[in-house]
């Protein structure tokens, strides 16, 4: 369950930013989860809940909404755009697990469906990030 490490990062960051902005109350937090990493949302939610119970201060689970960001790849050689979900079917479970831990490892296992190049950009859907924090001062 390495999701815990990322959940911890999210919670720490929200609390730190809320502190910086002098928020008395956190109203809503939007967390984006890139599809590439195939994070299990249940596991991720469970981890955040546990971490918050150990001291989430102004933050609680019902304030947090998670959204999955579809992963799009773009070839730097031929310009092709495609969905990671279309490449996923060609990957072994082992390979997609490696990508789960370090998303950039996609360059090892995924190829451009048009020209076969490993030289592509991850245009969207990489990693876990905080889209916004709404609060009251």
């Amino acid at each position, binding site marked *: 369950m390495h999701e815990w*490490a990322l959940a911890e990062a999210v919670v720490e960051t929200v609390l730190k930013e809320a502190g910086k902005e002098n928020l008395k109350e956190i109203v809503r937090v939007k967390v984006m989860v890139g599809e590439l990493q195939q994070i299990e949302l249940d596991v991720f939610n469970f981890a955040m809940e546990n971490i918050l119970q150990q001291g989430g201060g102004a933050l609680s689970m019902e304030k947090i909404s998670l959204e999955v960001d579809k992963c799009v790849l773009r070839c730097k050689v031929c310009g092709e755009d495609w969905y990671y979900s279309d490449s996923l079917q060609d990957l072994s479970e082992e390979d997609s697990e490696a990508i789960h831990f*370090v998303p950039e*490892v996609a*360059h*090892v296992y995924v190829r451009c469906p048009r020209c076969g190049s490993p030289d592509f950009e991850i245009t969207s859907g990489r990693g876990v990030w905080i889209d916004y924090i709404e609060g009251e001062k």
Partner: protein
Amino acid sequence: MMDPRLNVINKRFQNVKKIIAVSGGKGGIGKSQTAASLALCLAKHNYRTGLLDLDFCGPSTHVILGVEGIYPEEEKGIVPPKFNGISFMSITYYTGNNPSPLRGSEISNAIIEILAITRWEDLDFLIIDMPPGTGDPVLDVIRLIKRVEFLLVTTPSRVAQEVLKRELKVLNELGITVIGILENMKTKKGSQVASELLNLGVPFLGSIDFDYDLEDALGSPAKLLQTDFAAQLDQIISQKCL
């Protein structure tokens, strides 16, 4: 759009006493050999030691040490498995022997990911094997790991020394602690490096000779510890770093 990973990285190192990045600008000067052997020597002296291979394009420490068949455990993150007493972390757990043709920004992203999810246990020393150059990995290690110190390697070659001086200028300018400079692969008497470096204000740690039998020891920690390379390195670090 905030990247939450940046906020946990220093927490991941909170139980690590000393963090040493083995670097030196140029490739092939013995950075990986030094990093791997240094980790072995420290473990032999019963220091709790970790080794992190950040050369994602040309990872080498797993080949030098002969690491095989181990894999990190998932436990609120990733816990590096032990190899010969060393907590060992490398991208090769995830790439196998396949090439990883990553661009710099992606290497940067992968480094941030690994730093954010790896949970090092209590360590006296964490040794980081750096790739050649002063690109993304060096800039990120400086930016993200607040307490990192650099151990610089060079060879007597003029080419290597020119590159070293460039890296040293950057590190000095940024106020990064440089433990000192190690001259590796010496084949002639006397040290050109020592005198060259006098004016640079960085400690010269000592020299390690070119070791013609080193190659035969690769892949075996026991044999590596018996090489002249390891003996010379051990003497230098015992006198100057421990």
